[in-house]
Structure formats: structure tokens, C-alpha cells
């Protein structure tokens, strides 16, 4: 069973600020889903290669051609906050 502490830890990893009631509801729902997923433990997978991709692809190469990049202004246009040519975020480093 997944604990409330586990859920809080995963929420921190996932950068989701969950309210206490949301945390408990999430715990109960994840518990139910994980119990269902646990049926996979009964499958014999000894010697089975994992599938990461349905289509086998190896080392897709292309010409190293010079193409026009997106203009800086187009990339900044959607920013919720910016200063000049930069994305602005809350302070990370203390003074």
C-alpha cells in the first residue's frame, strides 16, 4: 500500500503543490490503480527483452544542414514574465 508520506514525496519530485485533502484522495486513487497494475507481477518475464519503442529504429542520421532557427522574439513571445531578452523567474540564489 502506498503511504501518505510516499505520495507527498512523489508530489515534491513532480513539483505539484497538493492540498492535504487532495493528497489523501490521490493516495486512495493511486492505491487502487497500483493494486490493478500489480497483476503484472504474475507474468513470467524471465529472458524477455523490454520494448521501449514499437518500431525498431537505430541511429537515425540526417545531414548536418544549417537552417534558420526560430527568431528569439518568437521564442520569448509566450513567456509569462521576461526582462529584455531573458525569461524572468523568482530569485534562486541568495544575496
Amino acid at each position, binding site marked *: 500500500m502506498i503511504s501518505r508520506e510516499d505520495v507527498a*514525496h*512523489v508530489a515534491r519530485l513532480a513539483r505539484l503543490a497538493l492540498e492535504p485533502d487532495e493528497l489523501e484522495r490521490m493516495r486512495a486513487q493511486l492505491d487502487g*490503480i497500483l493494486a490493478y497494475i500489480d497483476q503484472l507481477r504474475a507474468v513470467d518475464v524471465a529472458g524477455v527483452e523490454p520494448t521501449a519503442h514499437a518500431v525498431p529504429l537505430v541511429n537515425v542520421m540526417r545531414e548536418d544542414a544549417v537552417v534558420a532557427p526560430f527568431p528569439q522574439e518568437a521564442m520569448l513571445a509566450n513567456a509569462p514574465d521576461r526582462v529584455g531578452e531573458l525569461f524572468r523567474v523568482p530569485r534562486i540564489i541568495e544575496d
Partner: protein
Amino acid sequence: MTIHELAEAYRRGETTPSAVAEAHLARIAALDAKVGAFLTVTRERALAAAAAADARWRAGAPRGPLDGAPLALKDVLCTKGVRTTCGSRILEGFVPPYDATVVERLEAAGAVLLGKTNMDEFAMGSSTEHSAFGPTRNPWDLGRVPGGSSGGSAAAVAAELAAGALGTDTGGSVRQPAAFCGVVGLKPTYGRVSRYGLVAFASSLDQVGTFARDARDTALLLGAIAGHDPRDATSVDAPVPDYTAALAGGVRGLCLGVPREYFGEGIDPEVARAVREAIETLRGLGAVTEDVSLPTTDYGIAVYYVLAPAEASSNLARYDGVKYGLRTPGAKDLIEMESRTRAAGFGAEVKRRIMLGTYALSAGYYDAYYGRAQKVRTLVRRDLEAALARVDVLVAPTTPGVAFRLGEKADPLAMYLNDVFTVPTSLAGLPAVSLRCGFSAAGLPVGLQLIGRALDEATLLRVAHAYEQATGWLARRPALA
């Protein structure tokens, strides 16, 4: 009218792309308040494209059968200069600086893009109830869901608000709403269509698919969007056949496999009966059938709900309130800003999947969940490939039941189990199409699913076309219309 009928009418000069675009825009204005298929209607862009198409048809030089076709796009496909929401608040204000490859290709073919359609947030859901902008309703019964996650596109085509549409399918998000809305929904082989400009959910499974009213229109749409794209390294570099030419030929001599696990416990008897009758119809047309077994079918959902959330948790890490979309103000540091923005911007289902995926990938659980699920994925794939080595096409129901009522599947797991017949194909990367094969007693469409070999969409469309020609199901239209 279908896309091919419209092209014929343009050719004869009976109508024009502009008149048809105006008629569709008027129909959207009159009916979409009830259906809720569209999130954004791009009236000006549509009319400008239609006027250009008028001139080409008038000059006798159309770009092809899609020239002037009024189409809709699921709002997970980037459109330059047109807001793209993914059904989420977290993308508030986001206007993509580029078009998805499939959008470029449709416009190059002359298509008239009417707008962007509603969807479950980030394509996570099977009912289009998980949109931040409210649900879409099923044109056959407004109290029922259109399916999802591409419910807006499916409903738009069913309600004749668009002649065709694009959606995306990760675990059934084109085929399941196509079944619920009684339209043709094709999920191509993984890699057949470029994912460039498709906002990522689960990258090893996501694929752009089509909605149309018949197999011929599906062939036209697929032909336009399929093909290699250097901007998507996972797109397959293989020639694109002439899907329209491949429609002819019928089913005589084809071997159809009937997987017994798709007719077991839990399937609505009305669905099972309609699908079995469809199989009899195909036999009557000269196909041979063979019973096959896909013993790993029941593991599909469990595998999918480890792998897709795991990939989603990684893909959706980009929504951090820095580069685009929503930002919750007032945070004292970066982590708090990100955590509060994501909490405010994502809906409950997206949070659940991010949590599930983060858990499955976290230290101590990776091998037990993610590693194991990837191995069982191999077994699911082998099952399907082994069956398709013996038969040409698998025939099965698309969903265990017909469209359910809004609010009926409040339990997340109950919602997930609706995808039991569509998820295995996605895990194997194989193409599959859903088409109308009858109605329930209550008048709701039933979907027949055809599953094919990798890159063999042509055979699926040939079977679908033969079935349509032999039956009269397409004549029925929702009362809304």
C-alpha cells in the same frame, strides 16, 4: 457531404469551397453550443483558405481532392498564430510560433481549417470530460460522452460541423471516440505520420490519426499526412502508397482473425452481436475467418498505465511557468513557483498520471513497475505480431460498450478499462481503424475495429470500404442534424 463528394461538387462547379466553409461555420454557430466540439473557431483563416481554393478550382487547377475540404484539428496540434490549449489551463495564452507538420501538409493540400477541437486535457481520458473548458457531448445523445480523448474531433465530424478532422491516439483516443460517435477513426502505424508539432503525452505511443465519414475520405486524409519528416526522428522513412487506389479489390481471399479474448466477459451483448454480424457480412463478401487467441490482452491496460504515465511525467515536466503558459504569481522561490503553477494549471486526471508516472520511475520502484511493464509490452507485441503472421487483419470490437453517460465513470480505473481493446494495438505500434457497424437498441453507434500489420493501413481501408459498400449504416445521421 463527404470530402470526396465535395471535391466532385467543386469540380462540377455546383458549389465552392467558400460556400461550403460558410455553411460549416454557420452550422458551428448554430449547433456547437449544444455539442461543444470546438475550443477555437478560426473563421478568418478558414475563409481566406477557402477563397484561395475557390480560385484554384475555378482555374481548373485544384491541388487535389482535399482542396477546399473543411476540416478540424484536435487542439493538441500546434497551429502558428492560433492558440493551442491541449484542453488545459496550464497553456493559458500560448500561441505556437510554428505549425505541426500535419497542419502544414493539410494546408499544402488546400484544406480549409475551421478550428481547434476539444479534448481531454493533454489527451488523458476517454470521455472528453477532463477538459478545462468543459465537456463535449455526443451528437447521437447529448446526455452521453463522445469518447476521448479526441472527443471534439469525433463529435465535429459526426455532427457534420466538419467534413473530417485530425485527432491523436495514444491508447485509443481516435478509435474509441470514433466508435462512440459512429465515424471512421484511423490510428496509423506508429511512425507513419510525423509527430512534429504534436504536443507530447507519451512519445513511444502517440500517433496522429484521422476522423472521417467513410473509408474513402480516410484514405484521402491519411495520404495527405503520412510520410517521413526529418523533424521527427521516429517517423518511418517508407513510401506512402496510394490509399485511394487500394480501396478497390474487396475482401475475397483475405483471412480475418477473430481474437476470442475480445468477446469475453465484460462486453456489452449488443456490441458483441453487432460485431459478430459484421464478421458474418465480411465472410459473405468472400473473406475467410479464423479464431485466434491473444492471451496477453488483459495485461494491456496495466502495462499502458505504467508506461504512458511514466512518459507523461517526463514530457509534462516542461510546464514550469517559465517559457510559456500559466504562472501563479507570488511565489518566494523557483520551486514554489513551479509547484504552485503546476497545481493550479493541471486538472485532476493529469495530476494523477504525473504522480503515477513519477512514482513508477522513482528510486526503488523503477524495475518493479517501469522495467517490468516494458517487458510485458514485448509479450503483448509478440502476441499480436504472431497472430498477424497467420491472418491479414484482426477484427474485433473497438470498445466493450457503447457511449456512456456524462459522469458515469467517475472512478479513474473504470474509465481506464474502457480502453481494453484499443491499448494492446498501441503498445505494439500497429495500425487500427474503427468504423460504424450498427446501432444499439437506444440508437447509439457500435464500432468495429480492424487491426493490421505494421504499415498496412491500405488493407484496413480496403476491408472498411468493402464493408461500407455492403451495408447501409452510413445513411443514418444523428437527430441533431
